[in-house]
């Protein structure tokens, strides 16, 4: 493994980015559920800055608190301690399930997001069509959600998230339920859109290859409680192929660490 491609850091510091003010600042965040006393800590002292325009993958075993962290950043829940700042305003969020509203067509789903974002009525339809165009679903404005395939639904969901007009996009395992080929195509789309729109993406996954395929930086979370265990800077050029040798090599290395994190729990 050549160090020119990757620079693993044991300490979760982002020295070279400290000067630019971050798009997401997570500082000393703790989160536990339940009443004080019996509460189980889920997240423990997470500190993480996401630079503007960065594509960051948050990697961790199932149940380690990735969704919890993303919900906190999205403002759907409040941290028990610590602070979360998103200077650009309410971020957009995409879920594993498409979460499209079945009583609306694909286009109207996007228009609802535009409307709630304060876009004037006359501009909504053309903008929704533009966004569908962006995810290569130009002809699907009038389609009902159940008439779309899984991959198409996630693309509409992506367009709806973009309609929120935020430059920060949070994605919670958005492609986990898709088959490999469809996921591959969507990796391509999200990479392209991230570059075209200069988005800041915080992408949660438990799939190491997916993380290496997409991210500029991979942050590994430990489980119970979730802490930042390690991070990798990935300087491979985009677009990458998930089946390429360099993605595979780094995946092997990161998987080893992920296994190590999971193994620790079997020991007590």
């Amino acid at each position, binding site marked *: 493994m050549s160090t020119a491609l990757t620079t693993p850091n044991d300490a979760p510091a982002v020295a070279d980015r400290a000067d630019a003010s971050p798009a997401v600042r997570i500082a000393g965040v703790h989160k536990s559920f339940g009443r004080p006393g019996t509460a189980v800590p889920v997240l423990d002292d997470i500190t993480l800055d996401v630079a503007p325009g960065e594509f960051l993958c948050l990697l961790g075993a199932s149940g380690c608190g990735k969704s919890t962290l993303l919900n906190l950043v999205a403002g759907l829940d409040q941290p028990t301690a610590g602070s979360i700042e998103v200077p650009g305003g309410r971020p957009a969020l995409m879920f594993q399930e498409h*979460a499209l509203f079945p009583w609306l067509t694909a286009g109207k789903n996007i228009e609802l997001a535009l409307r709630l974002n304060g876009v004037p009525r006359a501009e909504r339809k053309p903008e929704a069509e533009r966004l569908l165009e962006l995810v290569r679903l130009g002809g699907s404005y009038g389609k009902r959600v159940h008439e779309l395939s899984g*991959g198409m639904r996630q693309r509409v969901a992506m367009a709806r998230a973009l309609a929120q007009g935020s430059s920060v996009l949070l994605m919670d395992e958005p492609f986990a339920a898709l088959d490999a080929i469809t996921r591959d195509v969507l990796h391509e789309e999200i990479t392209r859109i991230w570059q075209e729109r200069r988005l800041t993406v915080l992408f949660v996954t438990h799939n190491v290859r997916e993380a290496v395929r997409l991210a500029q930086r991979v942050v590994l979370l430990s489980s119970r409680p979730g802490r930042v265990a390690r991070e990798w800077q990935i300087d*491979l050029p985009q677009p990458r192929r998930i089946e390429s040798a360099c993605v595979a090599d780094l995946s092997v290395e990161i998987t080893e660490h992920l296994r190590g994190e999971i193994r620790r729990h079997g020991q007590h």
Partner: protein
Amino acid sequence: MASTETAPAAPEAPATPEAAPHQDLAGVEAGLDALDAVQPHRTSPAQLLREKVLPPVLGVLLVLGVWQLLFSLHVTPEYKLPSPLDVWHSLTDLWYQGTLFSIIWTSVWRGITGFAAAVVIGTPIGLLVARVKFVRAALGPVLSGLQSLPSVAWVPAAVIWLGIDDQAMYAVILLGAVPSIANGLVSGIDQVPPLFLRAGRTLGARGLGGARHILLPAALPGYLAGLKQGWAFSWRSLMAAELIASSPDLGLGLGRYLENQRDASDMSGVLLGIILILTVGVAIDLLIFTPIERRVLRSRGLLQTGR
């Protein structure tokens, strides 16, 4: 796209960007979209006739046939079981007297206006019960209890409180329909997937906007089921009330017509009254509620095509 993959020449292959992955994947994407997209499927009119119209028509014919057979065999005296033709004559008599439609209309108008009032009252009650914890704890059990109480039981009380007039009729309709409508809305709201609410909140829908754009449309199927049941209950209780309460102020509705025919020992009139009440109930369900419900369910992909 079906080319065989060539294995990488060396494990330490240099990290050169692969050639033209874009065009490659765009083709895959187009293929996937074409393969995966669900083809909407429409039933032909002939199939519709065969599967939707024919069976119920056959069912009605069967009932008429059995009826006619029992009549021809003289199973009971004629004053107890008139023939279908006798009932038909009672119908044409009403038609020629010009009272058929006014009888039906008196009851239907009462039913519809009472039902509309029940919707106006039941909907906010349902919303409050569904969304306000205290109200749910206080009113929830009462509503469920009222829903299982046959609202005919209210007729004597309504007559004493309100007198034998339209007010008593409306009170009975409301007591029959409001609990069903409110409960339908409550269960509709309870069944809204939390994911929709979270998605709505990330899109910025809160408070009234959230209720209007997310909660209510998501709860619509349950609400419609409640409306449908509410109509069935209010029609039943109205007929019972018309049968029991007798006063010239009330005019001649279907229930009263039925009771008058019983008084006159006119069995074919009694049967006609029953058939008319049944027909109106089924017709309103079939012409109003079922199409709306099917439209809503179909547009959400909750209905099998061809069903």
